[in-house]
């Protein structure tokens, strides 16, 4: 479903030279699976997901979503995915219904089909109370529901959640995790990035631990703990990070060296 090979992204900064956001990551995510990207801030999780959702262009490597290449078939890829992130806010001056309808129409849905699909989603996510509420007046939890509804209105096979629980209270976060589990049960391929280990342990079928633009380890939780001889995810995480930092003392990549 999602195949990522040697995916790289670097930025040019005239003061700091080349900044490697992704140093060539590879992984596969399958339908009916929640694939977790776990890593500290700046690990490259958001960059991977922004590339998969075609917001950013990769500097190197390949990534395909449901058979479509993100670089060359971006338009097809966008029809295959639903993207929810902490940065994907809702419009203040649109109601919940208008916003979901707007995105549904952008995805090419029209008329009665769109209306019945929206009714179904509003029922499932219990959003009928906020149907005519403007985004500016919604709570964080309500906005997150609208974001999910917007992302699934076209029933995409792939869903991407980028730190979607960040900033949510416990109840809303739990409801969101339950929604993601439901989507997985419907056979969707879900990619879920977070830096909260408990969420990964609870939800993800496979995990990739990322740090400084690289995947340090990838597999099921059981496989990873067994391979690295660690009792739980938290210990495994710190062990991998420390080992990586120790092995690859970070040498700043200067402008001159890049130019040379």
């Amino acid at each position, binding site marked *: 479903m999602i195949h990522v090979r040697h995916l790289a992204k670097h930025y040019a900064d005239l003061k700091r030279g080349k900044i490697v956001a992704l140093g060539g990551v590879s992984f596969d995510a399958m339908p009916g699976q929640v694939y977790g990207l776990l890593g500290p801030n700046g690990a490259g999780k958001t960059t991977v997901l922004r590339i998969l959702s075609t917001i950013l262009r990769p500097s190197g490597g390949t990534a395909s979503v449901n058979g479509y290449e993100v670089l060359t078939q971006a338009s097809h890829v*966008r029809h295959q995915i639903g993207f929810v992130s902490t940065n994907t806010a809702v419009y203040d001056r649109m109601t919940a219904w208008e916003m979901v309808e707007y995105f549904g129409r952008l995805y090419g849905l029209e008329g009665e089909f769109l209306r019945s699909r929206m009714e179904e989603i509003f029922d499932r996510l219990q959003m009928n109370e906020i149907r005519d509420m403007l985004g500016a007046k919604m709570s964080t939890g309500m906005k997150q529901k609208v974001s999910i509804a*917007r992302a699934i209105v076209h029933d995409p096979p792939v869903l991407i959640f980028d730190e979607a629980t960040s900033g949510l209270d416990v109840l809303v976060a739990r409801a969101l995790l339950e929604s993601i589990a439901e989507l997985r049960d419907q056979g969707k391929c879900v990619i879920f990035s977070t830096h909260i280990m408990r969420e990964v342990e609870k939800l993800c079928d496979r995990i990739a631990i990322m740090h400084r633009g690289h995947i340090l380890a990838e597999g099921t939780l059981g496989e990873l703990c067994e391979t690295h001889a660690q009792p739980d995810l938290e210990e495994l995480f710190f062990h991998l990070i420390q080992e990586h930092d120790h092995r690859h003392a970070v040498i700043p990549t200067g402008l001159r060296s890049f*130019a040379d």
Partner: protein
Amino acid sequence: MNWRNVELILAREVRDQLRDRRTLFMIAILPMVLYPLLGMSFFQVTQFLREHPVRILVVDPPPPGELPPLIDGERFSAALFSPGDDRSAELLRVTTQKAPNDTSRAADSWARQQMLDGGFDVVVSFPAEFALRTKAAAEPLRQESGQPSPELDVSVYPNLARDSSRTAHRRVTDVLLRWRDELGRQNLESRGLPITAAKPFKIATHDVAEKSQHRAAAWSKILPLVLLLWALTGAFYPAIDLCAGEKERGTLETLLSSPAERLEIVWGKLLTVMLFSMATAVLNLSSLALTGTLVLSQLPNLGPPPTLAFLWLLVALVPMSALFSALCLALAVLAKSTKEGQYYLMPLVLVTMPLVVLPMSPGVELNFGNSLIPVTGVVLLLRSLLEGEYLAVLPYVPLVVAVTVICALMAIRWATNQFNSESVLFRESERLDVNLWLRHLVRDRGPTPSFAEAMFCGFLILLVKFFMSFGMRTPRSFSDFVNLVAITQLIVIALPALLMAVFFTSRPALTLLIKRPPFGTPMAAALLAFAFHPTANMLQAVVQWVYPLDDQVAKTISQLVFEPDSIWVLLLVIAVLPAVCEELAFRGFILSGLRHMGHKWTAILVSSLFFGATHALFQQSIVASLVGAILGYVAVQSGSIWPCILFHAIHNSLAVLVQRIIGDAADRPEWLRWIVRETPANGMLYHWPVVLASICVSAAILYWFHRQPYARTPEESLQEAIDHQSAHWMPG
């Protein structure tokens, strides 16, 4: 592009904006309220000005008796005003007073004190024994002297820095002139002569313009200004909200992850901004027209605007809104917040305002040159159309339309590029730390200047040159000219660049490109200068045809070329000195610093604009900018200043020599007539085949330079890597 998506985005953005109270206020409520209020204020202010009486102090007025009456109590005599015009007499309150006995004080100082102490607006002082002296002045000329008595001075002391005093001055002068006429008439009658002996005729003006023409002329100055200002303002706020506002609220990424392509997003937003820009302009015009019809039509010569005017205004509004909207959109997407967006868009207003206001200057009319100026051409065209001069403007319509459409398309392309740039969409905030920057400037000097230092040097040269132009007089002789050029070149242009190279860089020689040039480049540069000369000569002639030189300026330039006896002194001043000084500054320090941008061509362009701007005349600056771009390219490709100095010296020498030697030769050989021809307006010009050959040979030499390997700056290498990274970079 999927237009359905554009339509969806447009509909959403329009609905979003209409739900914003600020937008509604700007486009709908403000226009409806603004003009009626302005109309009311105008009348109130006019009324206030009209009814405000002024106080006049008359010192030593002539006593009533033999002379015609001047003052009647506290007013000027009613006989001096039109019958029944009591109002005008009422507005001049007169106080009379004897002249001071103390004559040591200056008269104007005494008058100023009287105005301060007594609250007078104007003081009028009659000379001593005015009545007697006027009588003497009216005596017939005596045979022996043949000279009339000298004219008497009636001194009027206004304070022209004050509005009320200016008004009083105007009114009292009118009264005094009428009284003088009356006095003259009385003198003539006493000699049995009619008034027509002194005033054999009067000038009767009969305006042939119809009332509607006056009306059109008045509105043609107001309506285009209102239209364009509101089209810009109407684009300004929605653009900020649709770009910077979306970034700030976090909805931009939501939209970018949708199936809409970037181009569709740009068009959706652009059409929204255009719609609001046009709506704002139309509503303002409508409100102005309504106010004009109801209120201003009571004023003479300013009835309601002509109906046809609105058709022309609407036609012009579409491309202008497109231009302003695309510019606003491209700038607004740079900003991370609405506050930052306002900082970016203010310069746009400051640049546009002079272009809109320029046509209001007296004497600026639609011609070939003005029709090529963006915005200004449209305003002038509209003005002419509103005045009904359809046939006169017809030749300029294609030019104005072409310039406006090209500008609008370029602006739209820029906006689209901005939306495709990740560095623009996901730009991080920057923080300015002055201490850190100052420490960095002193301690961490780079081998070549930074971009900011290069820009600073460029603006410093321009500013010093600007202020110096006020301090130094216009050269009247060749020695004056030599002094001016020497000071400008050595102190204003070369010195800042050399000092900054020494103090702000660790390798001044590298900065100023003082190194041995690659083999063949000096020869190629010299050949290029010779080859390019006919093209430059023709371009200069074309520029002067479009924007003609002032006759006096042209004459002065011509004199400077022909005056000095020694051709070598002339070449030293006009060719060698500028070649060395300007090259060190513009191709040395400034271009070296600008290349830190990472874009060779942008650096060359900016340095050439600085170079062009330092030339005193606008007509020179245009061709100088092009020559500067060629010199910049030679500097980059050769990596040395010497080929540039050689090119520059030969280029300037040829400009002088062609006019002086060939133009001066009385017995010009026949073969030369096949190459050059003399024109009354532009002096010596090359024939077109020579110019075409010049273009071809110049292009071939530039291509040779293009094939030369050149040293890239680290930033240029980095930029090239960025441009190719997505296609070629693979992790190891």
